[in-house]
């Protein structure tokens, strides 16, 4: 929340990016989430990703719904416009914003209650429309702000802090995203910054609907024995399909990578994803394979993380609509209004 302001002072030796910005320029106000909350690590990863990509903060629009996760846009990119909308409806607001100005980067931040429970419909439809965005779900399987009720991603059989066992089946948003046609689908873990940062960078550069499910344990209500979203549980059951490095098309620098298990995926904008494969047979361009892989591992209790699927030639809503290159919000009377002479013709056709 904004009543705790951060001092603007920072050390002169802080590293700067190509724009001359330091990390501090990508921060927001002080988080009011619980100490140790996984969501704050995700905010940190977003800051790092934007810093490394030399993004001008004000060219990002950050949108969210309602809940702990949806509060986080206040805690990063303080120079960006943000929109904390209504519960479960961030995707529609983001879609509209994107239609108005195709030139900004759209970052949607949501939670499991916001996206899998109340907002499942909007989650699904934004992905199937191919809105060019980064859609991050900070997934802790629990309602934090209302104190510990299960959300729709809570695993069947997991226990709440009050000792209640969840008897409903869980929704796997990654599986859904694959099914719905998202062109970039990944999962990560808030305790794994090295995996998160390149994934977020790649998602930002991806010119289509990019979805990242980030498991983010709730230290207050879902980090106990019996929870399947606790730090310990996720660490023990995490099966990473790949490690990712990310190279932008603008600055093609080569990074050192482990020989023998590397795959380079060139994205539509020329940026490159360098995948260090942990699972030797994993092909990130195979949607069906990804679905299969995900389900096989889920069946044996493993949470698959990494870049699960990417379409290097994604479609997006503007391409499908064939909209003009100029953002719609900057078209003026001359481009929009056909004028009185045309209206006369229309009148004549109505007699």
């Amino acid at each position, binding site marked *: 929340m904004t009543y705790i302001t951060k001092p603007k002072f920072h050390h002169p030796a802080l590293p700067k990016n190509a724009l001359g910005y330091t990390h501090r320029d990508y921060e927001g106000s002080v988080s009011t989430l619980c100490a140790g909350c996984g969501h704050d690590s995700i905010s940190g990863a977003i800051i790092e990703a934007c810093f490394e990509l030399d993004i001008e903060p004000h060219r990002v629009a950050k949108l969210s719904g309602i809940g702990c996760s949806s509060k986080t846009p206040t805690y990063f990119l303080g120079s960006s416009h943000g929109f904390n909308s209504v519960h479960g409806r961030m995707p529609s607001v983001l879609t509209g914003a994107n239609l108005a100005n195709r*030139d900004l980067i759209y970052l949607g931040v949501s939670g499991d209650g916001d996206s899998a429970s109340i907002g499942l419909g909007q989650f699904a439809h934004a992905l199937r429309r191919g809105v060019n965005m980064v859609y991050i779900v900070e997934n802790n399987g629990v309602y934090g702000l209302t104190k510990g009720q299960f959300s729709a991603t809570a695993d069947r059989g997991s226990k709440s802090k009050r000792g209640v066992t969840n008897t409903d089946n869980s929704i796997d948003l990654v599986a859904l995203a694959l099914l719905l046609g998202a062109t970039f689908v990944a999962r990560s873990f808030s305790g794994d910054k090295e995996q998160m940062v390149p994934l977020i960078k790649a998602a930002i550069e991806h010119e289509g609907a990019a979805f990242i499910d980030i498991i983010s344990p709730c230290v207050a209500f879902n980090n106990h024995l019996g929870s399947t979203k606790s730090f310990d549980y996720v660490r023990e059951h995490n099966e990473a399909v790949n490690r990712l490095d990310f190279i932008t098309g603008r600055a093609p620098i080569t990074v050192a990578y482990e020989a023998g298990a590397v795959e380079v995926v060139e994205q539509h904008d020329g940026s490159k994803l360098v995948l260090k494969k942990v699972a030797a047979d994993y092909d990130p361009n195979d949607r069906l394979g990804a679905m299969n892989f995900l389900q096989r591992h889920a069946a044996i209790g493993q949470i698959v993380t990494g870049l699960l699927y990417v379409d290097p030639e994604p479609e997006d809503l503007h391409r499908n609509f064939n909209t003009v290159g100029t953002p719609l919000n900057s078209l003026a009377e001359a481009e929009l209004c056909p004028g009185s002479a045309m209206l006369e013709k229309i009148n004549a056709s109505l007699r």
Partner: protein
Amino acid sequence: MPSSSPISSVNDFVVRFANVNGSGSASANELFARSVLRMGIPVAPRNIFPSNIQGLPTWYEVRISEAGHLGARGGTDLMVAMNPQTWDKDMAGIEPGGYLLYDSTKPMPKSRFREDITVIGVPLTAICNREYTDARQRQLFKNIMYIGALCALLDMDIEATAQLVREQFKLKEKLIDANLQALHLGRDWTLQNLQCPIGLRLRRGKAVGERIFIEGNSAAALGALYGGATVCAWYPITPSSSLADAFTSHCRRLRVDPASKKSKFAIVQAEDELASIGMVIGAAWNGARAFTATSGPGISLMQEFLGLAYFAEIPAVIFDVQRAGPSTGMPTRTQQCDVTSCAYASHGDTKHVLLFPEDPAEAFDFAADAFDLADRLQTPIFVMLDLDIGMNHRLCRPLTWDDSRKYDRGKVMTAADLDAGKDFGRYLDVDGDGIPYRTFPGTHPTKGSFFTRGTSRDRYARYTEEGAPYADNMQRLLRKFETAKDLVPHPLQANAAKPTKYGVIYYGSTSPAMDEAIHMIEARGHSLNRLRVRAFPFHSSVTSFVADHDFVFVVEQNRDAQLRSLIVNECSIDPVRLVPILHYDGTPITARFISRAIGDHLDALKVTPLRKVVS
């Protein structure tokens, strides 16, 4: 012996077509209405249709009025009864001395006809079966054939109809000849076998002039296009779907860049009304002009988002094409029943701006104005159409546009303003009108960003749950609503020739029926001053109009006197001074209804001048 003599009238009667939905009758019936119009005689057609695609009864009523009365009249002078399912009801609806045109192929027992009407039988099916072999052709040309029969019976100029057929099928040459042939078949048989013309006749007139013939939904969509709307998000719902459809076709014609073939618009058919309004809010927050079109149930679904748009102060334009509620109600029948639910949409203390166009021409104007108002006031603007104006063709003045007009984008701070050092507080009332400045996302690298939220905040958009800044903000929103009173279209007043103590307030599609009723009421010896309310919040002239009269009738098309309640509530008026005149059976309000209801009330006052007796 008919008990009433046959009605005799030139250029002033009502023809009603009773058909089966999906039988192709709609285009034939419209051809009739347009033919009359081409003869220079005003018409007001109305579709009375079921929530159904095929099989259920549907009616098309054409009121012909050289005097230019475009409201529904009530009653039928000539019934074209083509639907056996509704025979008895249709028969009962004919005025004494009226006429019935029916398909006499199959003989009907005399007991099925009324004695006080003139029955005209044309063996349409028999002629069709003789002339055509294809079943589809038999059906379609039967429709055209009865139009031909009407040409003979009403002494119409068939050339007007023929010319319309040629224009309609100008790209399908073959169909022109086939349709013209059917038209002549019907006309020739009737001329040869029946007494023509009947007592109802059409004579070329000059009463149409420059006026145009357009559906309100299409005109509103065109207004949105002229008003600079670029984003439309909607969900199909009767009777508003044709507004989004019309916007789509207008845009394809007028908003595609000729060189690049790229679209200067984006139209999303959303997954529901929640998403529709969410997209509109997102687009408008980001600086595009955006709208949705919906009806009552959609308004119900949008409630939460509408509160956000009110409180976070985001422009949005909502076209509500009203239909009879509550719930699914009567989806294909008209009402003015969403006035309250739109005026106070959402939880907490909220108030919204409503515009009430009377016809398609005003729907065009108000649609374009709504985008200026939304940007100026940074709040949702509702354009309150209804099925009667939205889905029927209506004769109205030509649409006009002033080429020097600039879009009013309201108070938007630019990068230059920010660099010049202007203090930016998103909810700061700089000018004292309650309207703050906003910035669009992406404006400036370091200045002018803010966080939009539905939670309480201070003047600089910082989250707060403190009472004082919350109340300060709510008071400013009220100030902004005060500002709106002078910006919205003002009421129009028309006074009676003689001074009178009584007035009438009405709005929207009631207009033509009210204008006609006023003459009927005058004929009964009463005078009324009229005030047509065109927007909410109410201009101060609404309060003074009520104050200037002993009492005022409020005519509306809903059960609960919704506009009257708004006037009582917002203008602090004693409810006794406002007499509700309510029509809410789903049919359009008629002049006959209004003049009877108001006339009876005023007659009663004349008979017993109580106050005088007592004093």
